[in-house]
């Protein structure tokens, strides 16, 4: 039995590990927890709902036959202890597993590329290790009502397949940085430094949203980060592409 359990556990961890290496971080870790939670929730829901429905039908009022319930049936210590202890074990397991995963989520790998992101009303300043700055904010002109249009400045670029640590702060009010495929949020608080890390493995453009309410245009406080192969990223970072436009952006 023990050997079988060990084998099963081994298989599960192997399957999970394989998945993790291919997926974005920390989204992959989050997905694991999400699957566990979802499975548990469905089971718990059924454990409650199925007996409820059965009792609702079986013990419904019938004139002349069942007009009142069993007045002596007032409790059962064994059952009550059971549904105290089992949920207790389940939630402690969840919190502990969550703890282990959270630790991993909050520990950036040592080779992570560090960038600095400063949030402001309503946009983002990306500062790279060599001092290069890129701004991203929405176009607030007379057509602003129409939807999500970015300024035509250069987009912030980041390398794919490499862990990136973002040091966050804010210039004015509280904002929160959320990168959609990485499934990670962290508040940007004025006067404080916070951080998060992520790794995206597929090239493309991804949404960054503000996740903490910050005023009129909170909903339009977005950026689109372009993830490119590392060599392309290095060329871009070293080159002088569109620096002038970026400065204009800063002046706005």
């Amino acid at each position, binding site marked *: 039995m023990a050997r079988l359990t060990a084998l099963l556990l081994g298989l599960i961890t192997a399957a999970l590990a394989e998945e993790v290496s291919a997926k974005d971080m920390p989204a992959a870790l989050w997905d694991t927890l999400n699957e566990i939670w979802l499975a548990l929730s469905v089971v718990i829901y059924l454990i409650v709902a199925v007996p409820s429905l059965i*009792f*609702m039908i079986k013990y419904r009022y019938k004139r002349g036959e069942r007009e009142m319930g069993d007045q002596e049936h007032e409790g059962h210590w064994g059952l009550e202890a059971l549904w105290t202890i089992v949920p*207790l074990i389940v939630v402690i397991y969840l919190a502990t597993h969550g703890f282990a995963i959270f630790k991993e989520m909050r520990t950036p790998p040592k080779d992570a590329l560090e960038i600095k992101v400063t949030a402001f009303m309503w946009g983002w300043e990306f500062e790279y290790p060599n001092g290069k700055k890129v701004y991203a904010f929405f176009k607030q002109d007379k057509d602003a009502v129409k939807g999500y249009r970015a300024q035509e400045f250069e987009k912030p670029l980041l390398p794919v397949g490499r862990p990136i640590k973002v040091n966050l702060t804010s210039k004015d009010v509280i904002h929160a940085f959320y990168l959609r495929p990485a499934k990670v949020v962290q508040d940007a608080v004025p006067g404080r430094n916070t951080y998060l890390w992520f790794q995206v493995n597929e090239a493309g453009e991804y949404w960054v949203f503000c*996740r903490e309410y910050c005023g009129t245009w909170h*909903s339009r406080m977005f950026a689109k980060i372009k993830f490119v192969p590392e060599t392309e990223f290095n060329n871009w970072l070293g080159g002088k592409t569109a620096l002038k436009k970026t400065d204009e952006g800063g002046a706005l």
Partner: protein
Amino acid sequence: MREAIHIEKPWFSASLKEWIFTTDHKKIGIMYGITSLVFFIVGGIMALGMRVELFNPGTQHVSPDTYNYFLTVHGALMLLWWAIGIWGAFANFLIPLMIGARDVAFPRLNALGYWTFFAASVIALITLIPGNQIMHMWTGYPPYSANPNSGLTALFVFIWHLTGAASIMGAINFLTTVVRMRAPGIGFFNMNLFLHGVSSMNLIQLLGIPSIAGAVTMLFLDTYVGTNFFNPAKGGDPILYQNLFWFYSHPAVYVMVLPAFGVISEIVSTFARKPIFGYKSMVVAIWAIALVGFMVWTHHMFVSGIPDWVKILMSYTTVLIGVPTGIKIFNWVGTLYRGAVVYKTPMLYALGAILMFLIGGLTGIPLGLPAFDIAVHDSYFVVGHFHYVLGMAVTLAAFGGFFYWWPKVTGRMYSEALGKLSFWTIIVGSNVLYFPQLIVGLSGMPRRYYDYPVIGEWITLHQIQTVGAFVLAFGILLGIIALIKGTLSGEKAPANPWMSNSLEWRLPSPPPPHNFDEPPKVEKDYCPHGYCKF
């Protein structure tokens, strides 16, 4: 009995002057109820406005400032006026009836409490006037709330002060009443679970409100006097506000939900015609939730930059709340076993509340895990979660309570067919509205967004929600019509239409002004939950 004491008219047919100067707990309860319901409808209309705007991406009908105002006021009204205020109505009307008292302990304080609440209502209405609007959400986080663009922060602060003062007055009053004025034979372990619900609720109010009052007072000073409690540029800390705010506002969730648990317990045992299953563990669970509820507040701040060890500590306490909550749910299911379940409108509402609350609870557990919360914090998943708890469990319990005690309050039966129809409309509408919120949240949609980018499935999910919102609104309307129709043209209600054993059903419907002619005597083994024994 009414003939014997020469009262021809029911107690509520009083003149306007009598209503305004009344210290009668039943009249004050009714006034709380009407005020709460009116603001529930106003908050609901604002929600419909937001849902219409979100039907399509881009700007259609309202400006972002209007939308943010709607959202701020929707949150404040639904939480402070509806989810908390409505229990002021139930508590006022029912506590003396359930413990066999003629009134509450401090009737004049009770009237002052209501009129303070009324003053807060007036301020809430003042924010409707353009130029007075508040747009920093019901949480009012600084530094944004100290920013002039966010609207009149003073009104926000005064709303908190006034509703808080009203709640403290109510809390002192209700706790004293329950502790000191019970009829002989009604003790801690054989009083109504609703009384445990409101007592624990009021203890939380008493302990928690000073914290929020301090937070908003500091916010007021920061905004208008130039202090720097929350101003990081001058050494203040905006996170301090969040700590003080949630130290009350998380337990406030239990302020909203514990009385709802009480109402569900009353209804389920009455209509299963059977004592509640595991009464003692229900009592322990209620008080355990109230106690542990004070130790979980930082789960609202898992991504705000607090130390990681605090998050882990509070994640354990947060998921621990699931245990007593689970006990309650299992006990309700146990109550159905070997019962004789009568399906009247209140029972449908109570059963619906249990099954929907379970979804709210199960989606709440992962939010207590920082590793899960890191992806869905401030997303629509959170919105869906608390709407299952507050928009469904609390609202269904409150409507269940309306239908359940309506005969006692008005002396008339409500319309059963309309009542049942309202339940099914509400349950369908709510699920169509709230379930997609969970899905769109897991897909990353941030909350408090007036607009969203063109991401295929988001549009569909928002459109489904809008349809659900209108179905829900129609259901609420049907429910209110069923109640009003009952009052105007319903059959005369007997004293105990549901054959409950609880004390309030031993009085005529509606009860005489002074409730009991003489202190009631209950049987030796009095148990308020179960089939009528008197």
